[in-house]
């Protein structure tokens, strides 16, 4: 099942710089997208979401961009902080209420001091 793909298993970024995590999807029925962050031995924690009627959503240091025609979304973190080091999961669902999320494989982000 490759409906949601995160092609970069890992990413290393200098503290203070921008982190950009990417996600692609194939199912055109998806219209609600989320990013979750996961620390070891913890469950995924919701970060930010975006509905397909928007192309950008911002919350503090986190911004999610959605390109529906390319079936691509990205998460920007700026400035990156050491506490941002975690695994980031992209997830998608067919509608906001469904919450049957399809997850990507995750990208391990490491912020270097």
């Amino acid at each position, binding site marked *: 099942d490759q409906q949601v793909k995160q092609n970069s298993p890992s990413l290393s970024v200098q503290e203070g710089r921008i982190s950009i995590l990417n996600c692609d999807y194939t199912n055109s029925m998806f219209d609600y997208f989320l990013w979750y962050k996961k620390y070891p*031995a913890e*469950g995924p*924690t919701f970060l930010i979401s975006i509905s397909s009627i928007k192309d950008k959503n911002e919350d503090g240091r986190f911004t999610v961009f959605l390109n529906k025609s390319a079936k691509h979304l990205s998460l920007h973190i700026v400035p990156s902080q050491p506490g941002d080091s975690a695994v980031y999961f992209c997830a998608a669902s067919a509608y906001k209420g469904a919450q049957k*999320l399809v*997850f*990507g*494989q*995750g990208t391990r982000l490491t912020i270097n001091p």
Partner: protein
Amino acid sequence: EPEVTQTPSHQVTQMGQEVILRCVPISNHLYFYWYRQILGQKVEFLVSFYNNEISEKSEIFDDQFSVERPDGSNFTLKIRSTKLEDSAMYFCASSGDSPLHFGNGTRLTVT
């Protein structure tokens, strides 16, 4: 901030045994879920539960699996006869009019 709690954090069982994984969702949430993550693989949807019944389930959620909300606070996942391939991290989640909130998971090891 309210959170989803799961017990136990780690369960070891022998193949063929029954296990029950327990979850206490956030109190005012109405939708409950189980997801699992096999080591090295994606987080996968198992089942969603609303109004005391299953609202959706995946192909993974076969007759060996069942869910129950035995009282007003607990939500359980039962695996009747565990197989080696059931070894995974099992996450409970709940939601209201909000994105899913996940618990910290139960690591199930089937030997």
